[in-house]
């Protein structure tokens, strides 16, 4: 390191290397990614979110929801099971064979072998793939999150902390009504929730003539004074539309599961 030039060169080489590796190469590999087809189906995945949900994604960003919520499900592995769909011409032999075989908790190879034996005996079998892991067991998703799930998102908000539950499949778990109640008063639907209430996404207004059909049906201790009602502002609707659009359940080649 005789002069500034050599220091510059050292820094240039190492940073340039990682730039090529983690900026250029991912862009070349994934930057032109297109929709994929769902396993055993001709449908494409992912379809874009509806317009209101795209606006909701920006409410999600503005309020920093990703500071406490992740949108990525992890998976430890997978387990296969074999189900008999047709006993064929010789049901007795197939039944005897099945009672001697292990049919759940198999690896892919074991399942293939078992399936082959059943087919050889004249029956028909189907293999079911189930993802395993704590996140799956918690019901946060059916499979791990993969790159395809985030194709249309901008910005991609994966999150890095689970102060609140994972939201990769928030749309599957809860309906829009529950989401609105939860946003206005988290404790009204989740006892002891640590989520701050987002009351500023709602309007508390005097009931004119007759109550609005959109007004929240809150439990008494969270309800506004008599003669008033709580109505979601557009931001709240958009945010809920976004949350409802979070569904990463399609079986994909990169994350196979049986629907």
């Amino acid at each position, binding site marked *: *390191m005789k*002069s*500034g030039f050599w*220091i*510059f060169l*050292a*820094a240039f080489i*190492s*940073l340039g*290397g*990682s*730039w090529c*590796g*983690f*900026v250029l190469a*991912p*862009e070349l*590999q*994934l*930057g*032109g990614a297109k929709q994929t087809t769902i396993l055993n189906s001709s449908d494409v995945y992912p379809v874009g979110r509806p317009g209101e949900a795209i606006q909701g994604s920006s409410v999600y*960003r*503005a*309020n*920093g*929801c*990703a*500071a*406490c919520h992740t949108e*990525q499900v*992890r998976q430890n592995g997978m387990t296969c099971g074999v189900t008999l769909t047709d006993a064929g011409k010789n049901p007795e032999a197939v039944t005897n064979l099945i009672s001697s075989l292990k049919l759940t908790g198999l690896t892919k190879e074991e399942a293939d072998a078992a399936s082959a034996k059943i087919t050889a005996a004249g029956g028909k079998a189907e293999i079911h793939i189930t993802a395993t892991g*704590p996140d799956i067991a*918690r019901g946060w998703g059916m499979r791990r*999150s993969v*790159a*395809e*799930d*985030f*194709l249309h*998102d*901008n*910005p*991609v908000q994966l999150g*890095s*902390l*689970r*102060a*609140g*539950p994972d939201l990769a499949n928030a749309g599957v778990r809860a309906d829009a009504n529950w989401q609105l109640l939860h946003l206005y008063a*988290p404790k009204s639907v*989740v*006892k*002891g*929730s*640590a989520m*701050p*209430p*987002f*009351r*500023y996404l709602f309007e508390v207004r005097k009931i004119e003539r007759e109550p609005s059909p959109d007004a929240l049906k809150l439990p008494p201790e969270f309800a506004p004074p008599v003669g008033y009602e709580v109505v979601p502002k557009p931001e709240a609707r958009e945010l809920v539309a976004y949350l409802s659009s979070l569904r990463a359940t399609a079986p994909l080649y990169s994350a196979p599961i049986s629907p």
Partner: protein
Amino acid sequence: MTVNEKSNINLGGARLLTSRLAGTLAPPVDASLRVPLLALFGGAAFWLVVSSVLAMIASIKFHAPDFLANCPWLTYGRVQPAADDALLYGFCIPAGLGVVLWLFAHLGQAPLRGTIVPAVATKLWHLGVFIGLAAILLGDSTGFAWLEFPRASSVILFFAYLLLALWAMMNFAARHERAPYPSHWFLVAALFWFPWIYSTANLFLVAWPVRGVVQAIISWWFAGNLLFVWLALVGIGTAFYFLPKFSRRPLQSYYLALFAFWTLILFGTWCGIPPGAPVPAWMPVLSSFAAVLTVVPVLAIGVIAWQTVYSSTNCEPKGGPFCFIRFGLSSFLLSSLMSIAMACPRISGVTEFTWFGPAQTQLQLYGFFAMMMFGAIYHLLPRAVGFELPFPKLARLHFWLSMSGVLLFIVPLAIGGVVQGMKLNNPNIAFMDATRATLFYFRFSTVGLLFILFGNSLFALNIFAMTFVWEKSLVRKALSVVTAPLEKSPASASLPSSPGFDVTGRRDKEVQA
């Protein structure tokens, strides 16, 4: 041949340093730095306090979710990133740049020329931070961690940094001691590092966003390079100047430092992609591999520091700045080991998505970098301004508050993170129970944050008082020029009597407007 002899014989920069340390510094060097340093550190101190107030608000929300809940711009998801960015962009980077300017001028024995430009660039930088923080609180964040500032603010920050780095490099080019000292490698590399990663991240994430998870990958790459590599380069570069200075012996040794530098930039720059990320598998694997290899530079830095400070017959160095730097280095070793652990898939399976990650980041940002900067600033600012610290006892108190604050804040948070992770990994334990388990640890962390807030306020108090005394002396000097014919000896009679003793033994003759 001992390491010491070898490093002296082989020369390198190490022997040069002894002459640089022993020699008295040319007054113009310090005088030239006064205006930009006061501007950089003054603003940094302000944002530091802002950051701890915001962090405190965010932390209280975990104990009382209803706290300030009706105020959109103080919701947790806005306050927390604002607190983080105020610490990183508001304090760490300008403080680091100020220390770089001072170190370059001193190591090269060359006064800073055209100080108006870095002074203006500093004001621009702080303006950029203000716009960025206001935008986050108003809901205009970009949504990328550590890159929340919107476009307008990023452009200002980028050009302000370029100007400051350019002036530092011009000063480096004008150095009188031609052979670069080890600190030079780290600091020159850091000056170059930031514009590259910051422009890449802003162009590909904010200006022309790439598609899908490539966004997440670039964002991780940026955060890793900023939080691990940039902070380490500046912090360790600073330590390699101050450790030999305080222990009065050369750095042990030149070649080990060269090795640490090369391995740090070579491996460190690939870190940051978490093992469980939903991206093609080669990326997290490569990143984890590099992260595990960073144990090499981290240990090398530990060995260098230990041998420089402790393997000497001299008594151990003492003093406030040394305490800060020693604590900062220990935090660096610990936070690096924590981040290496998080790169291992086994451990990451437990710690990912828990409070362990934020604990590591805060240890890196505050426990390591900010503490290092406090030590450096307490040492260099009195020399640059020409006054002793106005409240030296408060600086001591600051050390104790910050140190206990960091321990109270980080240790329970990291333990809480592991507990949370183990509970989250057991699907039979309800999610709420896992969250509730962390609340116990969070109470300690909030108290720790309170300590840190007090410590930071004391730091700001010293810096502001120093700026005030200096500005007062400027006014007096101006007055003395105006009233000169009326007094007998205006030059000496109207000079300020600074509180405490004058470090450099000089009066304030070379104060420049």
